């Protein structure tokens, strides 16, 4: 009896020891930092498969614009395998899990701009420095903001800038006409002289039709904050969202619009929001350049010509979004992946993509090439001119490590004003305590 008990105790100890041992092992197997070494030129004769793990249609757009086919034709030795998820947060979670476990990274992993501060401050050892590749010169064509956001303290550039999200306002021409408002792009732009005028037109529209003027308070909030010099953080990287002149005033304005019933009470990127794009449950929407493709996809061919776009009032410019193609340092195909990434973010490729109405270039050479582009889907609006102007006027906002969490908390709070009838003041308090809770 006694011996049996010691035996079982020994077994328990052995199992526990095993657990603790593997615990120690996995704790040690974390990041392996390597010194930066220049990456060689891709060998044009070696068979290579570049695996891409992506989100939000970045590579689907490349495919649609014919860029991947073009690359395959010029590089018969290269096979490109890409997989994509729609929502960036899902992608980011999966990417983070792979980084923590130290395995499973693809050869190209795009990074969204709201994660850039975290990537440059905590993942310096993970990603290839573009300066170490032969394509460092190409960075000179990019806008300063696009490059500086992905640059570490030591000057390493951790990704190739893919696109920018200059802001405009998109609207339904048929809905405007039905409400007795100008449906022509120039005429409408002449009436939207500032935000007050935009909201006054909205009130007119709601009175006339009983339908919502704009999709969401969160979209309007994005629009308002995008034109300001700072957002959640100051230049030094300190969070100033609770005290600066951008966040609270924009929040209050957006919340007031929601409380006044000008918004459709939807949640952005939800299925209902997608549907509303084709049914026209709202008349206007904050429209970063990548939204053009999203609208076309959701509203469908039957709404071609029912949409148009105007620039922001007062010659303002703003930016929402943009991504980078990052390459893991440990990738065996780093040279080939860098070659592909450089091609996809070249002036020529980015211009091609915009001409297909898909994404706005962050490359300044490409920006000059697309000045005259118009889009039939958007009633022939001069989208090239509208978005270029906005991109040039857009401030280079400093980013912060917890931008993502802060934005989510604030936009969620705006949804409660629209959907749950929470007062703007209470919503702000809720958001503040959530941010304090999650970030503090």
């Amino acid at each position: 009896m006694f011996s049996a008990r010691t035996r079982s105790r020994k077994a328990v100890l052995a199992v526990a020891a095993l657990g603790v041992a593997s615990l120690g092992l996995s704790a040690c197997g974390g990041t392996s930092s390597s010194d930066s070494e220049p990456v060689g030129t891709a060998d044009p004769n070696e068979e290579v498969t570049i695996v891409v793990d992506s989100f939000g249609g970045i590579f689907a757009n490349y495919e649609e614009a014919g860029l991947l086919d073009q690359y395959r034709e010029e590089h018969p030795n290269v096979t490109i395998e890409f997989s994509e998820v729609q929502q960036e947060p899902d992608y980011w979670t999966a990417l983070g899990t792979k980084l923590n476990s130290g395995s499973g990274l693809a050869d190209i992993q795009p990074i969204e701009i709201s994660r850039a501060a975290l990537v440059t401050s905590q993942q310096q050892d993970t990603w290839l420095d573009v300066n170490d590749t032969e394509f460092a010169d190409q960075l000179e064509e990019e806008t300063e903001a696009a490059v500086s956001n992905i640059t570490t303290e030591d000057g390493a550039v951790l990704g190739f800038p893919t696109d920018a999200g200059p802001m405009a306002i998109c609207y339904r021409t048929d809905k405007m006409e039905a409400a007795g408002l100008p449906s022509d792009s120039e005429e409408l732009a002449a009436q939207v002289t500032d935000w007050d005028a935009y909201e006054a037109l909205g009130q007119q529209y709601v009175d006339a039709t009983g339908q919502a003027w704009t999709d969401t308070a969160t979209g309007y909030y994005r629009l308002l904050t995008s034109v300001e010099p700072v957002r959640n953080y100051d230049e030094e990287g300190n969070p100033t969202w609770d005290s600066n002149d951008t966040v609270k005033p924009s929040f209050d304005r957006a919340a007031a619009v929601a409380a006044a019933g000008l918004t459709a009470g939807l949640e952005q990127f939800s299925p209902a929001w997608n549907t509303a794009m084709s049914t026209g449950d709202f008349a206007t929407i904050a429209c970063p350049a990548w939204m053009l493709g999203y609208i076309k996809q959701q509203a469908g061919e039957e709404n071609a010509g029912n949409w148009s776009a105007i620039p922001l009032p007062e010659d303002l410019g703003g930016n929402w979004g943009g991504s980078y193609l990052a390459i893991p340092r440990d990738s065996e195909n780093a040279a080939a992946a860098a070659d592909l990434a450089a091609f996809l973010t070249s002036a020529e490729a980015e211009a091609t993509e915009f001409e297909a109405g898909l994404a706005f270039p962050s490359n300044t050479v490409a920006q000059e090439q697309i000045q005259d582009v118009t889009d039939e889907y958007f009633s022939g609006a001069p989208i090239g001119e509208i978005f270029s102007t906005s991109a040039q006027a857009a401030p280079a906002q400093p980013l912060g490590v917890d931008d993502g969490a802060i934005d989510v908390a604030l936009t969620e709070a705006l949804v409660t004003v629209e959907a749950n009838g929470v007062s703007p003041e209470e919503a702000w308090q809720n958001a503040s305590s959530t941010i304090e809770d999650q970030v503090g």
Partner: protein
Amino acid sequence: MAAHAPTTEAAPAPHPRTPASPGSRRPPRSGRAYRRAPYVYIAPFFLLFGAFGLFPLLYTVYLSFQEYRLGGSSPEFAGFDNYAWLFGSDAFYNSLWKTLTIGIISTVPQLLFALGLAHLLNFNMKVRAFFRISMIVPYATSLVAATLVFGSIFANTAGGLMNVLFGLVGIDPVSWTNGNWTAQIAIAVIVTWHWTGYNALIYLAGMQSIPQDLYEAAAIDGAGRFRQFLHVTIPGLRPTILFTIVLSTIGATQLFTEPFLFGNGAGGGSLGQYQVLTLFMYETGFEVGRLGRAAAIACVTLVIVILLVLLNAGLAQLRTRDKSRPLLPRRTPTPTRKATR
């Protein structure tokens, strides 16, 4: 030969050094190998359990004392910081409360329905097999698919099926996901729909093991169907009921898929109306990216599950206990009791 047939009573003890005791069936020569064999046989389970059960558990406990970010640097010791944060967080108490309320409004009706359905299915009727099999259909349905369908049934717009039905009786459309209780009720309906049939089948199996003569005796004593149910079925099902309560409690505490898909994310509604513990953990770990904090939530959840199971099992024991026995053992046992020991 003896080693391969240990149960052969007639096998003579071949080794003179260790004489077999009279009652022992074990051939003494094969001592060590024989005693090791069972451990070898169960080793695969315990190795897998060690890799996928015990190790993650221990690692989670370890992480809960670390500051560890998703996609960030390696873990750093943080003492009780994560727990201090957790017990000071309003969102934690909110999620605890929602777990409790959704747990109650989904588990209680679910088990009562299941009991009633099982009772009805226990009667002799035509196409009984059909009814019994149809019970399991919701359980066999993919939870994801079911939740998405229910998501459109409980849509906020006037076109949602539930709102259409409400419209027929003159009730204004309900904004299901936005309301506090409406969202919780909608989720409870999904849970109840999914698990009722499963529990009903477990009850049915339990009922069929109750001897038929008890019912006959009750019928002779003049008990109707309902009294038979109360006084024969329920006491006879006691262990089964206990089992389902324990399972449902664990299930309710670990509820994830339904609220996650119902709300399109781990926020559990923009006011956290249905952010249960697991959603809170997911949000903290994978959306905010604080894995250390999420590990602390996981550890606290484990403790809560254990406490709840003990509490519920205890309550059920109390409720359905044998009335002839005292609740607590008497301090001075009667002589007869002493004798039986």
